[in-house]
């Protein structure tokens, strides 16, 4: 199975080489994003609402004098919003000079994933819900879904 994944997703560096990912939870499901994009993880901040932008953009926050938009991952993967608690975190990522905060329920750890554990996501095209999944990682008996943050933020 791993081999098959290797062939299918050869366009993706991560799937070939593996790498480090940051694991976080939405509800009890584990998701991951590639660590190369992550600049920091901060606690929940007061968010300033910006009128006139789509609902998934919750507003802007102040990170050391920089005004950074924040996105709700929950909203992006069509999960109902829940109130923020002390475990809610903002993962700050940087993509092509664009800095964005991602709101997640809680973060778990950074882990190294070997390519053999990685298989590409099934072809979900019709299922809107899973359009941001880049690949599925199966290691230590746990399933993690690696999110394609390029797609999630820029589309």
């Amino acid at each position, binding site marked *: 199975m791993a081999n098959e994944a290797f062939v299918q997703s050869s366009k993706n560096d991560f799937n070939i080489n593996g790498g480090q990912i940051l694991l976080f939870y939405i509800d009890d499901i584990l998701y991951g994003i590639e660590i190369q994009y992550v600049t920091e993880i901060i606690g929940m901040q007061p968010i*300033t*609402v*910006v009128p006139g*932008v789509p609902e998934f953009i919750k507003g802007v926050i*102040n990170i050391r004098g920089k005004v950074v*938009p924040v996105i709700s991952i929950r909203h992006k993967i069509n999960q109902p919003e829940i109130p923020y608690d002390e475990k809610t975190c903002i993962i700050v990522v940087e993509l092509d000079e*664009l*800095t*964005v905060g991602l709101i997640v329920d809680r973060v778990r750890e950074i882990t190294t994933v070997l390519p053999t554990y990685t298989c590409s996501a099934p072809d979900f095209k019709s299922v809107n819900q899973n359009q941001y999944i880049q690949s599925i990682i199966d290691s230590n008996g746990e399933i993690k879904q690696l999110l394609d943050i390029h797609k999630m933020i820029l589309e």
Partner: protein
Amino acid sequence: MSRFESGMESMVDMFIYESTSLLEQLDQIMMKTESNNKFDEEDINEIFRIMHTIKGSSAMMGLENMSTLAHRMEDMFFIIREEKPVIESIETLYDIVFSSSDLLKAEIELLQDDDSVPTDFSAQIKKIEDFVVYLKTGKMPGAEDTPVSEKSEQPAEDEQPQGQAENSASADMVRIRVFFEDNCEMENLRALLLVNKISEYCRELKYEPASIETDSSTAKQIIENGFLIMFNADEEDYQHIIREIEDAINVKSYEIVEDEEIPAAAEEAAAPAPETQKAEPAPEQKKNAPEAAVSEKPAEKPKTEAPTPAQTAEQINNKLAQKNNHASKGKQSLISVNLNKLDQLLDMVGEIVIAEAMVTSNPDLKGLKLDGFQKASRQLRKLTDELQDIVMSIRMVPLSGVFNKMTRIVRDMKVKLGKDVDLVFEGEETEVDKSIIDNLNDPLMHMVRNSMDHGIESSQEERIAKGKPAKGTITLSAYNSSGEVIIVVSDDGGGIDCQRVMEKAKANGLLTKPEEEYTDKEIFNMVMLPGFSTNTEVTEYSGRGVGMDVVRKSIEKIGGTVSVDSKQGEGTNFIIKIPLSLAIVDGIEVSVGSSIFTIPINSIKEFIKLKENQLFYDTSKKEIVKIRNKCYPLIRLHEFYGLEPKSHDIYDGVVVLVESEGKSACILVDELIGEQQVVVKPFSPMFNRYNIKQKGMSGCTILGDGSITIILDISNIIFDN
């Protein structure tokens, strides 16, 4: 910059900066001489020096085309200086100099592109060469009319390397051996640049190896033995020279050579040899002549300077000691800084201002009695205020640079249109933020062209008939007024003909209300509508009906406004109002529900608590507010942005009367919070595709407590409503 090796970027930047300012200087000199109608010796020397520097530095950058063009220009001025020909067609000379300067500027512009190719200047070079031939052949006899100057200079030049140099001079001369940084490459050209820089300070100057300019193999010699400069200068100039050497790029170290009698003498002997060789073939080999002249140029100078006594080794030592004492103090007083760094600095200061407010008005401190803390925080506030002022002042640039560029345009148009016009500056020392200056050039240029082309009457008779001086005047004036800079471009021409503007507007379908209802002011401002130009003929300079429209757009882009005022027969004024700085805005914070917005103070007219008899509804059930017999549309900000207000009752909230671009409206907010100077932060590029600028948000800002507010753009809110 693919035309240059990597690692050379900083040098390219330096080159661009230096050459641009030199060319601007050249334009100014030419403009000055043109209005005075004569060249001073000093002007010619200055032009000569400029071309020489450009030649040297562009050769160093490997820009052969620029270097050749500069070289030819230098040759031309060499002839003008040395032979003093009577130039009959002085216009041709001006044309050549201006067009060459334009070509060089354009080429420098090109350098900033990645894949530009060197432009071929051969046509221009041919023009210069032809003119040189004309100068020489046509006016050779003229040169004989001034044999006195020729003769007096000639022997001086001859003497220097031989008689003088060998007895007295060799003892007086300070010898400095300069070493360049390892691997800096092209040492000979760097040495040449250095020589050019110091040459103006010395009475006598020699260097070894002497043929640095023509012989690139000297680079190797310089690497091995260093570059030996021998000069003779006054005490003050001596300091300058040492400073120049210290400041020169790529200089690793230098040493002052003393008591090196024997080798020095040998060098002395060696040095004049190539020098004289060079001087001899000068008449035939014109190419070498200017170089030789430059190295000896200082010899012409000492007319006014009294001959100083010989400088003994002791004196030199004294000077050295002095120099070391003043080393820190004596550095040059101007530096050029990358604009990005200044932007960063401004950002940092913005941060500090915010952080200071976060500390001193921290909620944790509430109710505590902290005398020492209060005192210390007042001190901190004072310092941060000063810091902010200084940083803002660093970014301020006088308008004179932009104004001076207009001189050139007026000059060119004067020739082409055959109108005699004076350009007058007032208050050109007024300063504005650098980011604004950069956007002012084009609009001002359009306006000056417009005034030249449409404003000033086309014939002097017409002007005299109206009782005006035959010579037209265009005035550029600038002054500060309540946080804004006002720039007025005025001409004493025919003024705007309301009748014609009206007809034209009608013909172009630009009228939005009945003809009779237009006031003069509105009619004047119609000239700035897109697709409007009263000139029936399209000229080279204006008349395409895009000019004034573009002016308005670009001024509005930097947050300014343009208006027109005119009196028929007396002239026209274009009035530009621009903010002093884009980065910091005075604003009033207002709250709507849980959100806070900042409204720029310059668009607020007043705040009103509404009474019941002030509210009406129009036919489409829209709310209208009546204030002192004037009616304004009411915009409920919470509805506009879809927010939940504190109270839906209009009488609980505060109405802000705002005005922008001549339109007014009332905006309903929940509460006023306070006034604050805020640092404008742009929105994340992520928001660009949601068009939030159109929705009346121009940026955001961070308040003292770290929270973010959105700065409203009143003109878009009024428009969008």
